[in-house]
């Protein structure tokens, strides 16, 4: 498995370069020193004096720091090393000038906060306003069933009729129900809004389009006027 062999070698060197930096660096120094020695011996065996050979070998290898730097550049995981150096440099620069650091952090914080706040406002007011007139006067009325610990349940049709006739607190009252329905008897059920009031029906439909169209693949949005009659079982 040549692939895994290669991965193993890379991984081994990655870990070594990361965790045993000093060791790896020392080995590199030793390796280059050894190379200079071999070069020198070769020149001595060709008839140079030891001092001349040492000088010639030094000249041939050039600046040791350059060679080391080239080797460091090809090590696996250099990017991590570079990142570490960048982070360290950044932190040091910030510590050295705490005033600047504070102002920078505050500026970023206030900037991000303000942008988020303004965007949320614009998003809800301009981009996605509720599809109703005077939405601040809008409210939802639920039935409660405390005995079963159900603080919010849908209104029973007959209760709705009672509310509509007897409750004075609201300018108007409408009921709706959303759901999948198969209206043609064939094909895929569609997301449908039935409502007792045509303005509510249209509003609910466009509201549902906002929130549901993306989440229900293949769903077609429909709205249908349902007269209050089918909602209310005929009182026998």
């Amino acid at each position, binding site marked *: 498995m*040549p692939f895994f*062999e*290669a991965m*193993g*070698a*890379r991984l081994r*060197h990655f870990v070594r370069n990361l965790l045993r930096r000093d060791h790896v660096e020392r*080995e590199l120094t*030793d*390796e*280059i*020193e*050894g*190379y200079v*020695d*071999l070069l020198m*011996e070769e020149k001595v065996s060709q008839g140079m004096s030891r001092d001349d050979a040492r000088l010639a070998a030094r000249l*041939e*290898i*050039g600046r040791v720091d*350059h*060679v080391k730097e*080239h*080797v460091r*550049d*090809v*090590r*696996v995981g250099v990017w991590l090393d570079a990142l570490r150096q960048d982070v360290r440099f950044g932190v040091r620069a910030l510590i050295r000038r705490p005033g600047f650091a504070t102002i920078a952090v505050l500026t970023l914080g206030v900037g991000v906060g303000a942008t988020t706040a303004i965007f949320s406002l614009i998003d809800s007011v301009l981009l996605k306003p509720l599809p109703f007139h005077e939405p601040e006067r809008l409210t939802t009325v639920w039935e409660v069933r405390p005995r079963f610990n159900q603080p919010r349940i849908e209104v029973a049709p007959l209760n709705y009729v009672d509310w509509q006739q007897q409750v004075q607190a609201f300018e108007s009252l409408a009921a709706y129900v959303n759901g999948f329905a198969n209206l043609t008897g064939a094909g895929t059920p569609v997301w449908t809004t039935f409502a007792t009031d045509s303005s509510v029906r249209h509003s609910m439909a466009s509201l549902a389009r906002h929130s549901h169209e993306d989440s229900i693949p293949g769903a077609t949005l429909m709205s249908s006027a349902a007269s209050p009659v089918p909602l209310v079982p005929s009182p026998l």
Partner: protein
Amino acid sequence: VTQGAFQVNPGSLFPALHRLEQKGWLTSEWGASASNRKVKYYRLTTAGRRQLKAETANWGRISVAIARALRPVEGT
């Protein structure tokens, strides 16, 4: 070996050796030179030998192709 046609300077040699070692094509071990100094020796691994074979074959193909492509120029 190349009769001086290639001069590899240390700034290229050492990075190349380290790269080959990290790819698993070379292994290294520490030994002693004739004057008894610590020296690092590199040796080809099995994977390295396999890679050398592949690269050699590839180089053979390329050099033959280039030689063929240049032949018409020689005649003119």
